[in-house]
């Protein structure tokens, strides 16, 4: 068993799907499910190994630092498992949600996106990182425009515009990096980076920050996010929030922790995180469309994650990972629920949701559940991660950041609860004879159960988070494993 399956299988499936699509549409729908089942099998097999000792997979026989390698350490194990889980749930949800042709293209792009994301997480090579990033990005642009409507195209074009900038910056950075250290293997770069002049390093860092910052929704580089999230089909919103952004922030943090571990960078990250969070939460407060609101909320949560990464202590990194995990779960749940709420009410506006809680109680319940969880209320999982973030931030003495996080939490509470109270407590307006399909409900149910379970028993996830955090922080171990496996 090899981690390469994580990349290869979805990629293979992506190419298989159009072919199968010629034969049977129903079969197409099943393929991603099979892929995810297989991937979870892979994840279950590899996870116990990877969490203790990193598996380094050499592609095509070239030894590091020359060949392309995959690095399946604790962090990657954790992230791939998370991506598999979320991907599976998204497939389950899409199964009935995506009724619009061409279905096979949707699943193809979805599989490409999974390929790209797992690739970002697994790769040990900077240029490969770029390639996977581009695979993800192109799939994401196309998925954004999947509905082929006016708004989708507009959103996709904006995304593409900014995304091209992002890829340009990343590519530039890689080029400059290569020009200076003449290697592309991340572990190798990390050993050699200290010989590079500081100005160059900072310049490269800035380019990376710009490039990956765009994908990880850092302010002010996140103009694409609300549009793309809101115009893409709902499961795609969940993909963005749960997979793409997580993968790219992983990439950013991996690079920063490996190559640019300056105190000033960390401070900069905290400041950017705070600004991102505040502006996003405040903008979310005044949104009229539910999915835009969720998008802004997503940005805000990423700000929180960036803050926690920026603090850079072991507990804070762990808290950041935990927050990432919870956010992926909860935001997917919210996008799922919002998807059907929008579907039933026939409008993207929040005001159209009045009284839908009576008509569609289960979907609304899931939304309310997700809202409570993402605000960070006990006994849901969001509570613990937020608490851990706060405690770790405070332990570094950044009390202003703590206060601002809590302030934005209040704002967050306001806009989420506004929607929840609209759902349940306005006079009945919306009725829709269409029923929410079972597959969607099962997908949401799975997420709900996981959220509740983690809320009551956070040790389950936290237990695996500690080695992951240590891996990210322990540069020497990474280099050792990456080069001299």
């Amino acid at each position, binding site marked *: 068993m090899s981690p390469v399956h994580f990349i290869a299988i979805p990629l293979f499936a992506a190419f298989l799907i159009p072919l199968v699509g010629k034969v049977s549409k129903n079969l197409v729908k099943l393929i991603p499910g099979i892929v995810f089942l297989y991937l979870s099998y892979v994840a279950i097999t590899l996870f116990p190994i990877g969490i203790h000792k990193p598996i380094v997979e050499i592609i095509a026989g070239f030894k590091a630092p020359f060949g392309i390698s995959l690095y399946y350490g604790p962090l990657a194990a954790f992230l791939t498992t998370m991506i598999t889980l979320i991907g599976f749930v998204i497939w389950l949800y899409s199964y009935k949600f995506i009724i619009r042709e061409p279905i096979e293209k949707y699943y193809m792009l979805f599989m490409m996106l999974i390929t790209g994301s797992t690739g970002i997480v697994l790769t040990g090579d900077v*240029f490969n990182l770029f*390639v996977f990033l*581009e695979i993800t*990005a*192109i799939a994401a*642009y*196309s998925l954004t*425009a999947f509905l*082929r*409507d*006016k*708004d989708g*195209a*507009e*959103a*996709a*074009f*904006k995304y*593409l*515009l900014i*995304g*091209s*900038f992002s*890829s*340009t910056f990343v*590519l*530039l950075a*890689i*080029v400059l990096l*290569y*020009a200076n250290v*003449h290697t*592309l293997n991340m572990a190798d770069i990390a050993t050699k980076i200290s010989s590079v002049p500081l100005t160059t390093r900072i310049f490269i860092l800035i380019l990376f920050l710009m490039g990956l910052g765009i994908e990880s929704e850092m302010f002010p580089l996140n103009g694409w996010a*609300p*549009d793309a999230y*809101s*115009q893409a089909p709902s499961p795609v919103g969940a993909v963005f929030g749960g997979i793409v952004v997580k993968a790219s922030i992983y990439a950013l943090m991996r690079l920063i922790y490996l190559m640019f571990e300056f105190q000033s960078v960390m401070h900069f990250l905290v400041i950017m995180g705070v600004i991102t969070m505040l502006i996003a939460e405040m*903008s979310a407060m*005044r*949104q009229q469309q539910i999915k835009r609101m969720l998008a802004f909320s997503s940005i805000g949560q990423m700000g929180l994650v960036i803050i926690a990464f920026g603090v850079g202590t072991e507990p804070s990194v762990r808290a950041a990972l935990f927050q990432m995990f919870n956010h992926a779960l909860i935001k997917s749940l919210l996008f799922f629920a919002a998807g059907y709420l929008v579907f039933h009410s026939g409008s993207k506006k929040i005001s159209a949701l009045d009284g839908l809680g009576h008509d569609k109680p289960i979907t609304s319940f899931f939304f309310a559940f997700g809202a409570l969880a993402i605000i960070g209320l006990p006994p849901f999982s969001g509570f613990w991660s937020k608490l851990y973030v706060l405690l770790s931030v405070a332990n570094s003495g950044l009390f202003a950041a703590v206060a601002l996080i809590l302030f934005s939490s209040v704002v967050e509470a306001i806009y989420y609860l506004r929607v929840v109270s609209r759902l349940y407590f306005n006079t009945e307006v919306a009725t829709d004879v269409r029923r929410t399909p079972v597959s969607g409900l099962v997908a949401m149910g799975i997420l709900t159960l996981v959220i509740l379970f983690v809320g009551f028993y956070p040790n389950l996830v936290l237990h695996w988070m500690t080695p992951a955090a240590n891996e990210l922080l322990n540069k020497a171990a990474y280099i050792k494993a990456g080069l001299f496996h």
Partner: protein
Amino acid sequence: MIYFITSVVLILTGMYAVLVKKNLIKIVIGLSIIDSGVHLLMIAIGYVKNATAPIFSKPGLTADKMVDPVPQALVLTSIVIGLAVTAVALSLVIRLYDHHKTLDINKIRKLKW
């Protein structure tokens, strides 16, 4: 050196096109120009004066007499990616034109706040 300067000029030109031009097609072209600039830069980095192609075609040819093969490989990949992006972009432009009957980016801003 000329390559570096040219590539920077290209990147800046592309940026100018993206940021200032209102026509969607021109913006896409700008993106392509930026891409070209970056590619040129990559090639320039791997270039060694008076060196041969990185193929051990003749005996006695050492690695330091060849241009760096890696950037070339990278450029190839990158060009392909750039092409893909351009393709997607153009298809989106077509879609936008279908819907909006205009190519002015200032008029395509329905999604805001």
